[in-house]
């Protein structure tokens, strides 16, 4: 099972999801070929257990551009003929992987969180209906398959190994979508990623005016306030406070979730926390599956009581 992994990196740093893809590829048997696409591919740390070969593909710009990755991936597939191509289910990858699958008429699935093999057949598991049901899928076509794997599911491949390093040059047409610059999100007053204790609030708080209540409670308890996506979408809180797949991934000692239902994207950002305590009015809330402790209660009442204790 020849596996091609497209490394994902940002500003010179390889992103964790790449190491997860390597681990997944290794579990499929391999050989695993990792492609490093960038202006300085040699500077990217891809020497990991499970990697058999690293292909450097030097391109003009250091940063991601969808046209570049599209063309390179198509070239890699033509040249190296992998059976499976693994990319992360990430903001960058969804900008090119489906296009390549379409162009080359390949098998394709996104947000895959489990893989197994039956002989030469790959069987992937993904969720449907808003993550409420799972399904096993396979790929009847003859050609290779592009799989976009869900981040934080596979372990990180450990440093080590002695992969072969090669280079491939691809002649590219001009990008139609060009990276101009990065813009930092508004400076966070706190870095939720480094906090030991996070108090996280979600849609359950109801209205913007209630946030002050929880800011006060967090302060009293010595916690840092974090939020789930809906509060950022509504413009109530800056994205620097957002925990989740599209926000920050956090691993505090204690994660206290109030009024958070436990959508898969949120869980991805905090399920590695030491102790997860969840309060939600709905006994069926998904967060109770991921939490260590839970209570079906009115979060305002519990918050009021907590405030009395601190």
């Amino acid at each position, binding site marked *: 099972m020849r596996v091609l992994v497209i490394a994902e990196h940002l500003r010179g740093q390889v992103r964790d999801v790449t190491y997860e893809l390597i681990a997944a590829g290794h579990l499929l048997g391999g050989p695993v070929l990792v492609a490093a696409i960038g202006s300085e591919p040699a500077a990217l740390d891809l020497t990991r257990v499970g990697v058999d070969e690293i292909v450097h593909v030097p391109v003009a710009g250091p940063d991601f551009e969808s046209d570049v990755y599209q063309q390179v991936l198509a070239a890699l597939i033509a040249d190296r003929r992998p059976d499976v191509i693994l990319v992360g289910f990430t903001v960058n990858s969804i900008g090119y992987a489906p296009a390549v699958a379409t162009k080359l008429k390949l098998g394709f699935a996104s947000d895959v969180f489990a893989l197994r093999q039956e002989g030469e057949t790959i069987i992937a598991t993904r969720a449907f209906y808003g993550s409420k049901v799972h399904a096993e899928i396979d790929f009847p076509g003859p050609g290779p398959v592009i799989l976009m794997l869900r981040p934080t599911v596979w372990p990180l491949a450990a440093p080590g190994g002695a992969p072969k390093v090669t280079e491939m040059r691809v002649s590219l047409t001009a990008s139609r979508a060009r990276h101009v610059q990065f813009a930092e999100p508004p400076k966070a007053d706190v870095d939720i990623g480094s906090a030991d204790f996070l108090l996280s609030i979600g849609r359950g708080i*109801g*209205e*913007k*005016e209630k946030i002050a209540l929880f800011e006060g409670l967090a302060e009293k308890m010595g916690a840092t306030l974090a939020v789930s996506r809906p509060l950022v979408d*509504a413009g109530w809180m800056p994205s620097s406070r957002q925990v989740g797949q599209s926000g920050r991934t956090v691993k505090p000692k204690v994660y206290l979730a109030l009024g958070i239902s436990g959508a898969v994207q949120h869980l991805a950002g905090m399920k590695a926390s030491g102790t997860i305590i969840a309060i939600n*009015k709905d006994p069926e809330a998904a967060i109770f599956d991921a939490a260590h402790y839970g209570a079906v209660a009115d979060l305002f*009442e519990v918050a*009021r009581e907590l405030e009395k204790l601190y």
Partner: protein
Amino acid sequence: MTPTRTTFEGLAPWEVAVWYALVVISTAVLMWGIGRLLLKYRHGWRSRLSSRQLARGVARAALSVFSHDKLRRRQRLAGTGHLLIFYGFLTLFIGTVILAFQDDFARPILHFEFWRGNFYLVYSLLLDVFGAGLIAGVAVMAVTRGVLKPARLNYKRVDLGEAKFDRSRYVVGDWLLVGALLYLTVTGFLLEALRIAETNPSFEVWSPVGWSLAQALRGAGISGAAASDAHLAVWWLHAVIALAFVAAIPFTKAVHMLASPANLAVGNERAGKELPRPAAATRPGQVGYAHITDLSWQHLVSLDACTKCGRCHDACPATAAGYPLSPRDLILDLREAAEGSIGIRAALGIPPRYKEDAPLLGEVVRPETVWSCTQCMACVSVCPVGIEHVPIINQLRRRLVEQNEMDATLQKTLEAIHTNGNSFGEPRRKRPRWTRELPFAVKDIRQQPADLLWFVGDFASFDPRNQRVNRALARVLQTAGADFGILHDAERTAGCDVRRAGEEGLWASLAEQNIATISACEFKRIFSSDPHGYHTLKNEYPELGGRWTVIHHSELLLELLESGRLRPVKRLGYRVTYHDPCMLGRYNGVYDQPRRVLEALGVELVEMPRNRSNSFCCGAGGGRIWMKELRPEGVRRPSEQRIDEAIALGGIDYFVVACPKDVAMYEDAIKTSGHQGKIQLRELSELVLETLDLPLDSTAETGKEAS
């Protein structure tokens, strides 16, 4: 000597001519003013008023005006004062008409004189007595405004925050009216006294006030010619002002003498209770009240009927909680816009001016003001002149919804109602889940016929605290052997608050769906434990084809108790108070049934200070429970103020409610008001269940009653 007197005594013929000329001028100005007002009303939307409706309206208006029932309600002093002014003015007016009739018609044309003898004596007495009453009434008003200064009359604006506002014009206008009436009655009596003092005919003792004053004048040496000269002078001083007063009626506060009874006659007696369907000819997007000319002509009349009495301001729960809404100021702002664009002020070019097509929302009325209303009808119910604040606000809301100017939370709720058929955004299938913990199955009335169709409602189906109430009611009904069924997951939000929030189309859609579902079932009557659902099913669904007998569960419980099908086993000796839900009480007049149920349970009922039609809204209605908080820091919510009111009664065990929104609002208010532990909440059904000596809930939540 025959008791009578000569009119125009002492006036030269040219002076009489001048008088009549002034009458003509005064009348012309009055007519122009009235005509201009009628023209203003014609600018409004030509809503239909049948002659039958008008006849009933006139009868209603006459009853209200002559009995002064609304004016005397809750404001005894001011009401009595106005009663005296009204009857005084009316009597004096009729007196003048009688005199004019004789002088200008009966004598010259019919050669008939009746204003003499006993007729004259009785006439004189009545006019004196009622004239004195008028002065007393005016004195009451002056003292109220000038000395007592109640909050409702201070014209403070609650919706402008710290912004400056100047309402001195209103204050000046108020005092001018009071002053004018006082001036006219005092000069009138003075006139009478001077006339009597001239020759002192003995029969004039039948004018007691005039007679006494005359004696005092004669005692001071004023009689004969001196009195006669003074009389002439005062006569002109009185006459000119009197004619000026009459001419100025359409331009001053005195216009309410015409506009208020007119408004009572042309108003809609079902205002607010049955909201109107949109007019068929509306252009797409032209929904609700966007401009002043969108107002119905009746609503334009009502703007002029307002006397700034402040009763609505006093009664409004939003105003009491510091929301940016005062019903009085809303009406006054609309009046200013009407006057400044299509009214008398516009015709005379007096600022402030408004453009006829100026958008009301934003320029005249702020959207937050319109959204603050809970549609509780306290204002409409207490207004003595029949102003319909609630339907006006509803029409403004329809416009706001159309323009998408609403809270994000309200928008989300409306979308959830459209997609899921309930305001909680829960899947449809979850609706009947509250029945699972019952020891028996609740009939699915779509499959099996039943006597009673129970329309459960959103809050009762999905809110955990209310699910317990539902189960209590179900167990009570089961024990009584009542044959009932529910619509299970086919029930949709009844739509009462959707309509009152201004999403008329969604209400109609929900109603159509519910009507179709219900019509396919077999039953005799519908009952609801939710006053909101009860109200719209009973009063507003018939217009769309849903015509059934609809009752509230308190009425059903009373039936079961009185017929003996429910027999109290345990007598509850609690001391309770009862909160009249807006939708049950003010909207539908169901005050006694819940009280009689409580009586049958043996509890001691202590009435809330504001009860029955004066009940104080919990703040959830009109869709407000789906909107964000508008209350400034530090002010108590309406529901918290209500609990304060209950606590002040002393020693109350239970605050009893009969509405699921009240259950939710007051359970919360008991906690947040700081009175937790001092009072508990019970819904009516829960007390009935207790009286049957059945446990409150068979699920493991009995320990959580108080929390």
